[in-house]
């Protein structure tokens, strides 16, 4: 399941937002992943980890979907937006 395989199969286009240190590591604040229908958040992260620079991401990632924290088992649907959140440091 990579961003480039199964182009003819139904696909989800899921935007992924990156912030702070993670945006620096991947060289962009936003990328779009092409994922199979029914893909989980965890599977989307596996595809994200194939991107250049992603090897430096930590093993555990905080993920939000549509502005709320989400578990790795959650299934993505069309229109979802993911955000990968570095350790928060507000306050």
């Amino acid at each position, binding site marked *: 399941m990579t961003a480039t395989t199964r182009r003819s199969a139904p696909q989800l286009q899921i935007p992924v937002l990156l912030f*702070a*240190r993670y945006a620096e590591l991947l060289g962009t604040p936003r990328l779009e992943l092409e994922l199979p229908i029914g893909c989980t958040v965890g599977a989307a992260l596996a595809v994200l980890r194939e991107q250049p620079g992603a090897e430096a991401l930590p093993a555990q990632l905080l993920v939000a979907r549509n502005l709320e924290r989400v578990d790795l088992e959650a299934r993505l649907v069309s229109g979802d937006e993911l*955000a990968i*959140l570095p350790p928060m440091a*507000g306050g």
Partner: protein
Amino acid sequence: MPYLTQTVISLDALVAQVTHAQVGGIATFLGVVRDHHEGRSVRRLEYSAYPAMAEAECGRLVSEAESRWPCRVALAHRVGPLEIGETAVAIAVGSAHRAEAFEACRWILEELKHRVPIWKREYYVDGSEAWVDPTAPSGIQSGQSAPR
């Protein structure tokens, strides 16, 4: 009114938001920029955020606090560049009695630190800079080099 702001935070404005006839006590908290972190001398810093989620999460925090305690909450967090001594976060909690105001104020701040997607980049006196990671032993995110 948005919770994130690029401009100076007015505690008076927050206090005004939680002041009404039933309020007998208002607890406030100010988080200000200090000049050191984990032994490093800090010259200034910059907060960045995931604005849409930070606004949503602050809204959820305020709702949760107001349902856990009989209180009214006002909250503001700066984003962008800040100098030493500037207010980074301000909380005002008004309630009929002091205990709820103190408890809710403390709870909001602790939750905010864990839940609101805001990041802090520190610029040190020696010219280096780093993203802060409160969960890391060094206090900064791994893979960065910042002298001590």
